[in-house]
């Protein structure tokens, strides 16, 4: 499959969304709402649950499945309050020494008047800064689209995993094509140029693991559950200073060859 076909697969109707992962991997999940600043953003689901018995904080973009639900979830495009809700839950995870699991699936942070007025850029910036020193393990899994800053704001993690047809990019290929070639129909070329597939990103060291997608997604969850549990358990055993040093180093390496 080329980059464009994978992009289409990442956006395909019927692909499991954030809540499917939450419901199939965690038990006793309890959703928590609101950012205590402005409102509750439905594009991001956050709460506490158990992973093989271990209490964890779970945060996921949720695009919605039905049309009505998609509209209610704003197609997984979060406003600042979504990122602030996520950060609030991460801070609680730090306080109660719970690891954090994030599921990323968004075309990007919402671009709209309200989002700008309430500081979309500031909200993302704060997440990047705070996640870098969050004193608890964080693993992010890209399950569909990983659109730019809106994806990164849930992905400053100790490890980043990607489903084999998930994508992760600095700009949408549509945006790239329209800026570069003034022609938004050249999406295919743009997708290729941006190196946005899981395989490309594994090669560049942006992700640690690519997860094979089975025909039936139902068979994916038990394995992912076990892998997440094992990984979090080993990260939990690390000294916090060492954990944070590695997390800093994980991002520090990009571009340090200059």
């Amino acid at each position, binding site marked *: 499959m080329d980059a464009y076909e994978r992009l289409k697969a990442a956006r395909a109707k019927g692909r499991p969304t954030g809540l499917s992962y939450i419901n199939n991997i965690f038990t006793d999940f309890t959703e928590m709402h609101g950012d205590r600043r402005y409102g509750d953003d439905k594009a991001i689901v956050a709460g506490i649950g158990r992973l093989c018995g271990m209490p964890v904080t779970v945060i996921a973009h949720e695009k919605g499945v039905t049309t009505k639900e998609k509209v209610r979830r704003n197609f997984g495009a979060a406003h600042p309050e979504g990122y602030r809700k996520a950060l609030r839950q991460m801070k609680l995870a730090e306080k109660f020494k719970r690891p954090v699991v994030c599921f990323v699936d968004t075309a990007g942070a919402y*671009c709209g008047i309200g989002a700008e007025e309430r500081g979309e*850029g500031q909200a993302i910036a704060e997440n990047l*800064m705070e996640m870098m020193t969050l004193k608890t393990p964080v693993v992010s899994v890209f399950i569909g689209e990983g659109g730019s800053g809106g994806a990164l704001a849930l992905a400053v993690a100790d490890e980043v995993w990607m489903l084999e047809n998930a994508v992760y990019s600095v700009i949408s290929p549509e945006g790239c094509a329209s800026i570069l070639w003034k022609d938004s129909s050249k999406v295919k070329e743009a997708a290729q140029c941006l190196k*946005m597939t899981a395989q490309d990103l594994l090669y560049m060291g942006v992700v640690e693991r690519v997860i094979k997608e089975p025909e039936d997604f139902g068979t994916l969850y038990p394995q992912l559950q076990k892998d997440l549990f094992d990984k979090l358990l080993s990260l939990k055993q690390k000294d916090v200073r060492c954990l944070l040093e590695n997390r800093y180093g994980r*991002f520090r390496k990009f571009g340090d060859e*200059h």
Partner: protein
Amino acid sequence: MLTKNLFKKPNNTLEWYDKHTQATLPDIPDDMCVSCPDCKAILLKGDLNERYSVCPKCGHHFRINARQRIGIIADGDSFTEFDADMRSSNIIKFPNYDKKLWHARLESSENEGVVCGTASIGGFKCCLFVMSANFMMGSMGTVVGEKITRLFEYATENSMPVVGFTVSGGARMQEGILSLMQMAKTSGAVKRHSDAGNLYTAVLTDPTTGGVTASFAMEADIILAEPNALVGFAGPRVIEQTTHQKLPAGFQHAELVFEKGFIDDIVSRDKQKEYITNILSLHAAED
């Protein structure tokens, strides 16, 4: 005819001026004057340079390059540059990126989109970074991210304050995901600098958008902006296209972002040195 001009692209004022004034001002060389894009006043370039490139009639802040900026803000020749030779390469083999870089270097006389180093401002030693709009619109690729990260790491090691001037179209898409990673990388360096108890002051200049807004521009302890600077995450055109809504007057202008509580103060260019000196002084270690 009215209909004839209805769908014409708006004229770029400066270009229009250059083209149309030659007949009426035959004795004055083209490069001696400019017209203010806001109030249309015709200004002599020499005068403008003496006035910090601010229009004396209406206060419009013309864009200036990194070296002019350093000349305005740093004491005498106190600026010592770091990593001046660091250059980008076409890491992900993006079409035409090499050519773009070559043009950008030629156009800006800089090697990359940010100039970093140490300087003293009003007698206070600090680390200084100044982004450059004329190098691919100050977009952040791996070199911009690396230079800024190194500056913050140096400042942390030496317990120095950082003063930074931002101007950027956002992350540089020609470097793909590696540009996005610079947002996390710089944010990490800012956080370490902050956790060590050091001061970071950012001055947002026109325009500061995208990945730079969503990382180190909005992470400063004190955030200032130049009058009327565009400050936002998504660009205004993209928002209009996505939402099909007309943007309110003054949307994403520094004054409105200030009203919404994201900027500490709007400071005109002629007052910036005095203002920052005072801030540095208020945070200076007591003897």
